[in-house]
């Protein structure tokens, strides 16, 4: 579905590389987590896929076609994008926000309206209640649901997500993560999700690519990463959620022992 071949990106004419020699493939229907610290090149990598950035060298293929040879705007309209800061248009209603891409693609108006209703329901927002509201009248979680609905409105096969749940409170974030994962499975979406939260990546991704200083250090399934981290940096990243999970287990065990004594 997506293939990156030796992609490099430099912002200073080749002195340093924000992305250096990155190659990977994402299969159809797969959710790839792209994880690393800020400045590791993960967002630049994501933006090169829909040509928000131009690679300095290397090739990117989407469905076997080189993105360089496609009109950038057409390409972007066919790829869903969920933004880090949500990026809803404050002067558009929820419905207008969601309909933007189908309208850019000049769908017939009735199809646009129908699709708007369908995707709002998909992300758990009742159209009757929310369609005419403005973003400023929504909670953060509701806003990001609209962001997801907008990305899915034009029925893309591929969705790019740039730290989509980063700005949300933990409970809302967990809800949205689960819901999005089930939507992704249901629609068989191919997704690349940039995140710096290893727990999020472990819970949502089919495979995870760990990036550091512009390079992909390891790419594999959550189990592979947990069991066989190939690099000290990857081990360090994996360590934290693992420790937390172990600690939670201990607490739960202790609790159940206490409960047994009381019985």
């Amino acid at each position, binding site marked *: 579905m997506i293939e990156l071949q030796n992609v490099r990106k430099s912002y200073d004419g080749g002195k340093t590389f924000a992305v250096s020699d990155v190659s990977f493939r994402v299969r159809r229907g797969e959710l790839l987590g792209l994880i690393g610290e800020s400045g590791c090149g993960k967002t630049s990598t994501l933006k090169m896929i*829909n040509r*928000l950035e131009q690679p300095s060298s290397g090739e990117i293929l989407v469905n076997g076609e080189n993105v360089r040879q496609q009109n950038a*705007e*057409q*390409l*972007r*309209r*066919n790829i869903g*994008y969920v*933004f*880090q*800061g*949500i*990026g*809803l*248009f*404050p*002067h*558009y*209603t929820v419905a207008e926000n969601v309909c*933007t*891409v189908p309208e*850019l693609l000049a769908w017939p108006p009735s199809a646009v309206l129908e699709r708007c209703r369908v995707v709002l329901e998909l992300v758990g927002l009742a159209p009757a209640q929310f369609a*005419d509201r*403005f*973003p*400023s*009248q929504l909670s953060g979680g509701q806003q990001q649901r609209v962001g997801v609905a*907008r*990305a899915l409105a034009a029925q893309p096969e591929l969705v790019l997500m740039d730290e989509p749940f980063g700005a949300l409170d933990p409970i809302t974030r967990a809800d949205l993560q689960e819901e999005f994962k089930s939507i992704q499975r249901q629609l068989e979406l191919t997704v690349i999700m940039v995140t710096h939260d290893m727990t999020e990546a472990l819970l949502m991704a089919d495979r995870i690519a760990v990036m550091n200083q512009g390079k992909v250090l390891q790419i594999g399934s959550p189990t592979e990463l947990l069991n066989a981290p190939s690099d000290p940096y990857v081990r360090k990243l994996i360590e934290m959620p693992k420790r937390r999970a172990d600690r939670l287990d201990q607490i739960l065990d202790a609790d159940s022992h206490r409960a047994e004594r009381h019985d």
Partner: protein
Amino acid sequence: MTENLAEQLALLPEYFRGHLALTLIALVIGMVISIPLGVWAAQAPRVKRPLLTLVSIIQTFPSVAILALVVAMLGGRIGSLPAIIALVLYSMLPIVRNTVTGLENVAEEVVTAARGIGMSTRQILTKVRIPLALPVIIAGIRTAAVWTVGLATLSTLVGASSFGNYIFTGLQTRNLLAVTVGSLAAACMAVILDSLIGGIQWLAANRNTGAQTARYRAVKVLIMIGLTSVLVVSGYSLLPDRKVDLVIGGKGFTEQYIVAGAVEEVLQEAGFTTEQRLGLGSEVVFQATANNTIDVYLEYSGTVWSNLMNREDNPGREAVMSEVEAYLAAEHGMANLARLGFQNLYALAMRREQAERLGIRSISDLKPFAEGLVAGGDLEFFGRPEWISLRDTYRIDFAEKLTFDTTLMYTAIAEEQVDVIAAYTTDGRVAEFDLVILEDPLNAIPPYDGFLAVSGDAMDNRLFVETLSALAGKISDEVMRNANRLVDVENRPVTDGVRYIREALTE
């Protein structure tokens, strides 16, 4: 008072029409030019800096200077066109600046999102950046509107009717009621436009949160009503003026208003339709006559002599007049149609009682007493060529020379604090304080003969030429002085001065 008020209010429709038309046309043209420039500048950093600097520099030019420059660039054309051009230039800064600021301040993440979902640069501009910048752009238009209403008062100086006619005429003829009416009218117009545009700005800013509230709908209805009324009224303002046969010009002081009024009455009685363009700058009225926009106005030989011909010598009153005539005809196709008889020049004046007691009629007679007398002048007189010439020609000097504000100078001579003052020969206060003007037998002061300067085109109109030629020699220094006195000293309306002159003309 009530008569004066009625007279002022009778002028309101014309001035209101003129003022509103100037303001709205200038504002609309200003928007049409400035918003696209602002949009361009916001996208092209190389354009932005020079453009903002340029519009800021325009703003620092004194507005009167801009008006004069525009008139000069249009080859002396006066009226609405130069006024509108100047107003448009002034409206540019707030609109361009706010457009740039508004577009630049649209949140980066929103613009990135628009790009990321596949909007083209043009779509991002029209669907996202401009709508989001709209409240800021409208705020710029609002600032420009208030400035334009204020500055439009200056259009009077280039011959376009506005509330400025009230203000400038009122200031020059000491008619404070007229000044008040003009200022209040301009202020009201500014407040109304400001509230209206402010309302639109509020609607634009609140359209995504307030659109469903009752308050929003109420404001919307009010704004619609307001806009409709402005449209209807401006439709009325923009109706073309009726064409008149002759245009009478004038500079901005009492004598000019009075003579223009008298000339207008004489012409109307001869069957012409006329209109007045008064309160113009000296240079502006001359240029406009040279290019046939104005047909006739009151000019002074000495003004042409020193300001336009750059002469400093003084070959005598007759010689100056005939050289001025030759110059006007040769260089500007203009003519002296009637030398009215009076001169408006600097002259020495004394209290009649003292002058008679000492037997002084001329400056030569004054000389033996001068070293024991105190002289008063306005703030510039003792530094002017007129005084240098007097001093050197008559070898005269005073015990003391004091400078005053003009009004205080007359008080000073009335209260015998000074003995001699430098007055204007036709100043009404010369009569008011019973002063005598001393003769200047050696022609030390260049002559300032009042004459009707006429455009080349108007000279081809025989009836016009005959009608005005008859005024030659009809207005003496004393008649002019008394007419000025009615307005300047007794606070009577200009029309009373005009009536006084007319009586002298028919004698």
